[in-house]
């Protein structure tokens, strides 16, 4: 026995591994599958199956409040993803394209702050802060939501961009400068095209994160500024119909699509560098 060749340790061969893994998958996906399933229910219950129908998708499509919330969600997510990506790109350039300088760790911490501070704390702080501004300016628009979303999306946009820049050979930029490219031309013709997959990935990640947010949105939004998630949260306090399942399913579809594109982009970027 002792001289039997030792197999390399593999977690997959440990007893119970398969069972635990199965439990995890069941726990993760069963509720989602049930939710999707009942979105096609012909009846009004979210738990009693009465046959297949598209009626709740039609109902959601014709529900003005759902449409409004969707539009608000898209406006906020697109603006926040754009602004966060611009900030994150600049931050990534400033933290990878310079010699190490004093305080760079503090800057990393500052950029990643939204990942560390509990979301509810940020939400309350923003609520109070924006309330003060609202009192002084009287402005009630969407800008508050966009600014808040931009802030917490920056670290998500920053990480893939920074990863991309760190894998990029510094001598490429030196070669460009050596070949008469001014700093702006070097950025335009070499740095930007090479970091583009990272930027795109960062933007998509920021978009999904913004689309999904509930806590901060709930605190910061003014009247009539429901996003899709806060609208759904509000609905849950009333009578629940499979309409909410239908909305959730569409929402899920969009998120999965964006995240899939994100992974494909990342893989392509990784293999070409």
């Amino acid at each position, binding site marked *: 026995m002792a001289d039997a060749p030792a197999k390399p340790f593999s977690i997959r061969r440990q007893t119970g591994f398969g069972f635990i893994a199965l439990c995890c998958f069941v726990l993760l996906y069963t509720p989602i599958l049930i939710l999707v399933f009942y979105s096609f229910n012909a009846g009004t219950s979210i738990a009693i199956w009465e046959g297949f129908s598209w009626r709740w998708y039609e109902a959601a499509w014709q529900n003005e409040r759902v449409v409004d919330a969707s539009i608000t969600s898209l406006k906020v997510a697109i603006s926040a993803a754009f602004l966060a990506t611009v900030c994150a790109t600049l931050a990534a350039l400033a933290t990878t394209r310079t010699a190490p300088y004093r305080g760079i760790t503090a800057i990393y911490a500052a950029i990643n702050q939204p990942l560390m501070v509990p979301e509810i704390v940020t939400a309350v702080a923003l609520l109070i802060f924006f309330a003060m501004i609202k009192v002084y300016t009287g402005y009630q628009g969407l800008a508050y939501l966009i600014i808040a979303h931009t802030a917490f999306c920056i670290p998500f946009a920053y990480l893939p961009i920074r990863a991309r820049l760190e894998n990029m050979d510094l*001598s490429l930029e030196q070669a460009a400068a050596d070949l008469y490219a001014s700093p702006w031309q070097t950025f335009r013709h070499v740095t930007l095209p*090479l970091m583009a997959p990272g930027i795109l990935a960062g933007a998509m990640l920021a978009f999904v994160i913004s689309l999904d947010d509930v806590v901060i949105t709930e605190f910061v939004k003014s009247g009539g500024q429901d996003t899709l998630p806060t609208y759904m949260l509000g609905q849950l306090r009333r009578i629940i119909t499979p309409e909410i399942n239908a909305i959730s399913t569409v929402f899920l579809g969009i998120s999965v699509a964006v995240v899939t594109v994100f992974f494909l982009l990342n893989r392509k970027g990784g293999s070409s560098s």
Partner: protein
Amino acid sequence: MHGNLDAIPAISAQQVTKVFGAGPGSVTALDKVSIDIQRNEFFTLLGPSGCGKTTLLRLIAGFDHPTSGRIDLEGSDISYLPPFKRPVNTVFQSYALFPHMSVAENIGFGLKMLGKPAAEIDAEVEVMLKLVKMEAMRDRSTAQISGGQQQRVALARALAPKPKVLLLDEPLSALDLKLRKEMQIELKRLQHETGITFVFVTHDQEEALTMSDRIAVMSAGKVLQVGTPRDIYDRPSRRFVADFIGDTNFMDAELVSAGKGSDSKASLKLASGKQIAASLPDGDMSAGTVTAVVRPEHAWLTKPKASSVLTGNLETIVYFGTDTHYHVSLATGGMFTVRMQNARGQAGEFSEGDEVGIDIDADAVQVLRD
């Protein structure tokens, strides 16, 4: 007037010092380096790892700036000019080809940044592709060509804007031996055809000796000797240079008469008591104890005789095919190596343990400065 212009060196480094960092942890990568590199010259920086070759090249390219001293390009100070304003191009050790551009786009990049019209760029790219024999690859991506081909593209890209000086930092070190030999010849050809001044970095002494018009031997941030390959090999002026390049016998000796200048002959008294003529390095040398060097191929073995310059016991014989190395333990102490060509028919005359005499070619003894 024209002759006067030609006398201005392509690159002139004057007392260039480069210190990295500050305080006790600082590194002096270059220490008061002064070199003149003439136009149209194939100039090589040769030295061991960490001696400051890359640092000097980066200062000439503009990626770094000297801590003190200045660098002139054709007579005007460029010490603090950014890289994109210098008519100097670099072939990077890693090639640094742009991965998102084709071979042709890479080669045309410099001309495009200089704002040349598209037609002119296209024409020049064709010329360059032909020059480096890469016409068939013009539209390939840089990931789809071999290491040797990438090397050629890097060369063409750096040559296309017709720089005044081309800098090459160990451009052949990533290639296998055969390709390396080919590219050595190729580089010499390109330098001839373009008439551009090449500054070439290597730590391979053979490569330096075969390719260069002149060589600067560097050690620990200092330039120890500048000269033609023959100068550097036959007339090393420093112990480090003699040791770094080729095999050498070092001998302690007594300089009988003081001498002056490189061509003057002096008389040396060896430990064996024999006197021998020797060349002196540049500058004054005062009489006293000195070190002299003799290359192994400038000495030969004889039966011991009264006129032998050195005598000793033949310890080992190492056969190398074209020649044989004889390691002799000298009667006065120390070892001496003699290298004789086997074609001369002397092989077999001596065997290990023999008492032998050593004679040295006239004009083959060089006195070192340190």
